[in-house]
Each structure stands twice: as C-alpha cells, then as structure tokens.
C-alpha cells in the first residue's frame, strides 16, 4: 500500500485471473474424483470448517435441550411406561440369551465361523448438504472416535448408508440413495439375492437386472445378505414398492423405498467394521463352501 495508491494497482487482467482460477478448480476436481490425491488437504480444510459447523448446529441442539427440559415434567409417567417396557424386554432378552447360547453351541457343532458381535458408535447428523445431487450427510464424529471409511450406518429401522470419508472430528455418510451406492440384499420371503442400487433421487432405490419372471412381489422386504463382508447380514434395507414387468424387456423394473428415514432422526448408529473372513484352514471346506455361495449369488443377481 505504501508503494502506490491502491487505485492504480490492478494486477493481472480479469480474464487472465478467470482462466487461472478455472484451470485450478478443474485441476482440483480431476485430482479429487479421478486420482483421490487430496484427502490430507480436505482434512486440513475440514478442521477450519468444523467449529463453524458446530456453531451452525447450536440452535438445533439448544432447541433439543429446551424441549427436553420441558418434557421432563412428564418424566414420572414416562418412567413408569419405560419400567414396564423394560420388564417385557428383559423377558425377551432372557429368551434371546438362551437362544444365543444355543446358537453358539450349534455353530460350534457345525464348526462354522461365529457371527461377529458388532459394536456401535452413536453419532449425530451435523449437516445435510444443500444440493439436491449430493446424497450425503455429515456426522459429528470422526476418526478420533474410531470411525473408519467403510463402516455401516443404521438408524432404528434399517440401513442408512456407509461412511465414505473421515476427518478427525467429522465423517461423511454416503446414503443408500446415492447413485453410485449399492448394497447386496436378500428378499426375506424367499431368500432371493440381488443388489439394490441408489438412483440419486430422494426415497427411491432400484433392483437392477431382475428377470421379468423372477419371484418378487410388491411389499417384499429386502434385508442385507451379508455376502459382501461389509454389511452385517439381516439389516432391513428397503421395501419393494413398484414392479413393472414388460415382457418386451429382458429385465423387470423394480423400485423400492428405503426402510430407514434419514430425515426423521438426528441420531444414527455407526456399526463397527466387519473383519474380513479369513481363509479357512482345511482346504476341503473352502472348496465346498465357495462355489455354492457363488452359485446362489448368480441366481440372485439374475
């Protein structure tokens, strides 16, 4: 400012600056999507933005706290109800424990791998991106709380999505409805396996490559099949809402609605990562079990 009055300093021309910034942003976009070079830079930026996101979230957390305070007047009634519910659930749990023990024993007898007990981390939705294209939400816990990319996110009804990016205090969840997201599923009614994929639209999923004569009906419940080693088996994913069978096409058009509603709750559960299944020691078992799984898989996809 001492050298010349600000009025006379112009720097490079407007068009040159435009070209520079456009090239730079195109380069960044290419580096981010194609080559995945930038996780560190993204993390650095997210540390700047984290306090702002927290601050932006304070009104809603304050509202929650206040409504909780006013709700506490009904606590005695709620307490009574909860006690009753607790008793009922306790009874069911005792049964479950017995069943679980039995299950463990039976599995031992069969010498199969035991189902993993999954631990879970509770996280809150901090921010929903504003573009209609972006099927993602941002959670308020990150790698500091032990969250890793690839973990499954569920709410109380079913699968919500998968963690795709983490920073120390934040993590990004790609929702089921994202167009690049697919989940291996199984129809509860008949065990048919398939893969459900997002469409990029709110509240619609689709089963691709389902033959016209496949046994699938409207209202069928789809749960995770667990064959991918990412999603634990048996989590509700979607309900088949509409089937269009046009005999002129090879595949039927199956639309589903996701079971979980991301818009309803702010709390989500992040399940721990499944440990990849290790190779079984005796080769006979491995050769026996593998082809079967593949065959079923193929039938399901068809």
């Amino acid at each position, binding site marked *: 400012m001492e050298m010349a009055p*600000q*009025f006379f300093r112009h720097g490079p021309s*407007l068009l040159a*600056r*435009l070209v520079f*910034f*456009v090239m*730079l*942003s*195109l*380069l*960044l*976009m290419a*580096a*981010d*999507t194609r080559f995945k070079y*930038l996780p560190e*830079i*993204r993390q650095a*930026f*997210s540390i*700047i*933005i984290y306090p*702002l*996101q927290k*601050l*932006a*979230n304070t*009104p*809603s957390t304050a509202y929650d706290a206040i409504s909780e305070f006013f709700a506490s007047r009904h606590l005695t009634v709620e307490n009574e109800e909860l006690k009753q519910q607790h008793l009922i659930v306790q009874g069911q749990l005792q049964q479950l424990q017995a069943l679980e023990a039995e299950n463990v024993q039976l599995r031992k007898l069969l010498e199969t791998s035991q189902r993993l007990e999954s631990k879970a981390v509770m996280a809150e*939705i*901090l*921010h*929903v*991106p*504003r*573009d*209609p*294209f*972006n099927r*993602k939400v*941002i959670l308020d816990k990150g790698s500091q709380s032990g969250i890793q990319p690839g973990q499954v996110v569920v709410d109380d009804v079913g699968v919500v999505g998968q963690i795709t*990016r983490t920073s120390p205090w934040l993590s*990004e969840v790609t929702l089921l409805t994202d*167009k690049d997201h697919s989940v291996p599923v199984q129809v509860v009614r008949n065990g048919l396996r398939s893969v459900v994929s997002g*469409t*990029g*639209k709110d509240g619609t999923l689709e089963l691709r490559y389902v033959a016209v004569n496949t046994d699938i009906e409207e209202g069928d419940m789809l749960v995770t099949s667990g064959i991918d080693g990412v999603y634990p088996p048996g989590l509700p994913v979607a309900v088949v809402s509409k089937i269009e069978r046009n005999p002129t096409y090879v595949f039927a058009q199956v639309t589903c609605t996701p079971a979980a509603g991301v*818009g309803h709750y702010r709390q989500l559960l992040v399940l721990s990562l499944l440990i990849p299944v290790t190779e079984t020691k005796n080769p006979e078992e491995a050769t026996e079990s593998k082809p079967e799984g593949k065959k079923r898989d193929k039938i399901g996809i068809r």
Partner: protein
Amino acid sequence: MAFADYPKQEILRPVKGSFIFLSLMAALLLNLLPLKGTALTLCPDFIALTILYWCINQPQRVGMSTAFSMGLLMDIGNASTFGQHALSYSIMAFVALLFHRRLHNFGSLKQAPQMGLILLTEQSIMLLTWLLDGSNVPGWNFFIASATGTVLWPLFSSLLRMPQRPRSDSNAL
C-alpha cells in the same frame, strides 16, 4: 435517465477488512445451517450473495481469489467434489467484476433482477459440473434458491451497507 438519481447516493464510510471477513464467515455459517426439506430448497446461497455484494462494492479488495477460497471451504462443508463450488463462485465473481461499474450505479432494488441472472449463471455452472459427474437432472425447484436470492438481495445489501452508513452526528457542530 437512469443516472438522474445518482447524486442522491450517500457517500459511505470506508469498509473495514475485518467486517468483510466477518460477513463472509457469517455467510458460511448460514450456509452450513442444518436445514431440511422445503427450508433447504428455499434457502439462498448466502456465500454467493455476500461475494456478489463485495465484488460490486469493493472490487479492489474482494475478487476472484476470495470467491475461489470460499468455494473451497464450501466444498468441504458440503461434501462435494473439491473445486466444484470454487469453479462456480469464481466464474460468478468474474461476471460481477466485469459489470461492477454498471451495477454500482443502480439502487439495490434495480440490482436485484440482475443479481438473479448472475446467481442463475452460478447455479447453471454448478449443475453442469454435477451433470459431468454423472448425476441426474434435478427438478425445476433446484433454481428456486436463486429466485429467493433475488428477492432477498435488497434486504441483504442494505444489511451489509449498514456499518458503512455515515454517522448521523457527523454534520453536527
């Protein structure tokens, strides 16, 4: 003539750099509010509005580099591809800088429709980058945000001008 009312414009006090920074941060905060549903579609892009205001009124201090870095921050906040918002904001800032002398002569009410067009350009660039990424074409309500931005512009610009208003007692004595 359009310039007939030009001398009526009041002479503003110089803008503090800290105020520009603060306004940009506040806009970022507003953009990061956890909104849902219709509120989200109605909500204008506050960062775009703030950048536009400063590009028109303080072109020497806020330019494309500010727009670019705000875009990068917004990309992180929005979990989109790195550089997407940066691209659209810097092109928007370019358009605003190109026309800033002309736009500066209009009152904020007359500026509003022109701001609407610039915001629409920004959103179209955004849409284009998303389409290149392979997204579906969204519904028409994607563009509502620039319409609300247009409607809010007079209010918004008068709000940003408030700290620069001359003090009422400056003529006393």
